[in-house]
């Protein structure tokens, strides 16, 4: 039984696509067969983050129009053969696809893939409706900011109304030092408002920007980073493992002490 997970947030720019790329890649690294679907028609980015832009020949719109077969549109990742991308069309708008068509596409993919990750566009209009149409689970991405949390809350409500009941929260771009000085919402502040189970906390990291620009997800990088570790932990938790959360509280500490604490206590 394959799992169909939508990555969504309501607000733009909180890291949906970055999460989709890294979680998709990390799932594939663990040996799952993964399809990531870019549901952001007209403003697609997932192909860029995965470094697959120049390999796209067909997109979901051509599949739906019957101009090519589904497997022709799937772009395989050379670095990680378990991962494929179904690209969105860049020259169309969100209205080019209907929720029914999206369901059809996803259902066809369930025959081959264990995990289907749908990268939702920002907003709650047609594009969002398309993205969640086929989903059984959702990963809500938010940053510790009032506006992002407010939008995430709205999205949680919409998902529940659309019978997506298995929801998990990812808090992205947290700055532990600011939290300690009480200048930023903490994980528990966010959780108190949203009241859905937390699946991961990703620290703010400049390397994310570098990896995004290079089209190489952070989890592929040889050098370890807390952000990559956080993504890998999310994936292990998705797989049902119990993984303690990384302690991000201490500022300016090195990786060794972080890892030591990671094996020690749970924050």
């Amino acid at each position: 039984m394959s799992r169909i997970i939508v990555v969504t947030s309501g607000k733009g720019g909180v890291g949906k696509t970055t999460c989709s790329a890294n979680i998709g890649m990390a799932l594939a690294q663990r040996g799952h067969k993964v399809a990531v679907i870019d549901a952001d028609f007209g403003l697609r980015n997932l192909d860029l983050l995965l470094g697959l832009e120049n390999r796209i020949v067909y997109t979901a719109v051509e599949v739906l129009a019957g101009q090519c077969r589904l497997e022709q549109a799937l772009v395989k990742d050379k670095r990680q053969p378990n991962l494929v991308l179904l690209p969105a069309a860049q020259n169309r708008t969100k209205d080019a696809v209907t929720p029914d068509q999206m369901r059809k596409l996803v259902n066809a993919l369930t025959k081959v893939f264990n995990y289907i990750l749908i990268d939702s566009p920002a907003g709650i209009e047609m594009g969002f409706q398309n993205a969640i149409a086929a989903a059984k689970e959702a990963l809500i991405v938010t940053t510790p900011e009032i506006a992002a949390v407010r939008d995430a809350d709205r999205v949680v409500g919409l998902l529940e109304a659309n019978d997506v009941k298995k929801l998990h929260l990812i808090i992205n771009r947290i700055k532990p030092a600011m939290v300690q000085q009480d200048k930023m919402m903490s994980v528990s502040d966010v959780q108190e408002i949203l009241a859905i189970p937390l699946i991961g906390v990703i620290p703010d990291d400049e390397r994310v920007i570098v990896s995004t620009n290079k089209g190489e997800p952070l989890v592929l990088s040889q050098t370890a980073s807390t952000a990559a570790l956080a993504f890998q932990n999310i994936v292990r938790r998705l797989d049902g493992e119990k993984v303690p959360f990384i302690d991000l509280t201490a500022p300016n500490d090195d990786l060794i002490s972080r890892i030591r604490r990671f094996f020690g206590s749970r924050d």
Partner: protein
Amino acid sequence: MNSDIPVSDTPVPDTPAPDTPVSDTPAPNTAAPDTPSEAAISASDTPVPDALTPDTPAPDSPAPDPSELAAPNAPTDTIGSHPTPQPPQPEVTVPQVRLKGEDGRLLLLLPPESDLPSAMTWTELWLQLKNRLQAGERFWQLNSPVHLMARDRLLDARQLQDISEALAEAQLQLKRVYTSRRQTAVAAATVGLSVEQQSAITHLSQTEAAGQVLAEPLYIQTTVRSGIEIRHPGTVVVLGDVNPGSSIVADGDVLVWGALRGVVQAGASGNSRCMIMALRLDPTQIRIADFVARAPENPHSQYLPEVAYVASGGVRIAKASEFSKERLSP
């Protein structure tokens, strides 16, 4: 529609095909591709205009991962098919707003309406029209009369009014509307335009005749930005840059007087003698007829005007200065 959608166990054939014909002499300074079938687009530093880069002919060796490397409209048969030239597509399949000069008037052709998911919505059509009008100002006489060929598209009075105003902004006058839909004809009459209602059959036969010969070149002066797709059943000339995320699909050549960074296809209906040329050739992907090539992983430091063409079963790149000397002279 997608009854055959079930994906096989190997959804995408893997990149390297053993029989990939790779040129034996990778050019010096050419970013060496990391797999043999990696199509590379690069050449400006190399002395020989021909056989510059290892590159990949499409159907026999799927270079970019999407398996089918034929033209997007190609019949979707199995991988490994041979490059068969496509019969020219009837003009009807081009979902594009077109402006075309004819007998001292300008024809504004709207794409036909259909139930396909690829059919354009009014919003998309409207964006394209605005783009096209902004890109072409220099190419028509001011106050030229425009005849709108609406074909079977339903347009209400508001939309016709919008079109008329957009044309007026570009100093063009909407004079007459041709349509095969009664409602559109009525709406046009309410707005005060002269109307000619045609039967759908005449319009079909017209377009089929037009499909055999390339349309006159499309000349546009604009930056082609992400999300814009230009399709034209002839040669396309762009005065400006073609940004990543945009695409140009032409049945003839594509000439870019600027930087080419998007996806460009020349000879889209199967003519592999078509060429792509740009002052700065740095594309996401180029396709000529059924052949596909990607940019090398390591970009150039210096760019010179280049020409991409098909020779000995693959896409080749040559410096423009040498190309015209060596290839075009008898």
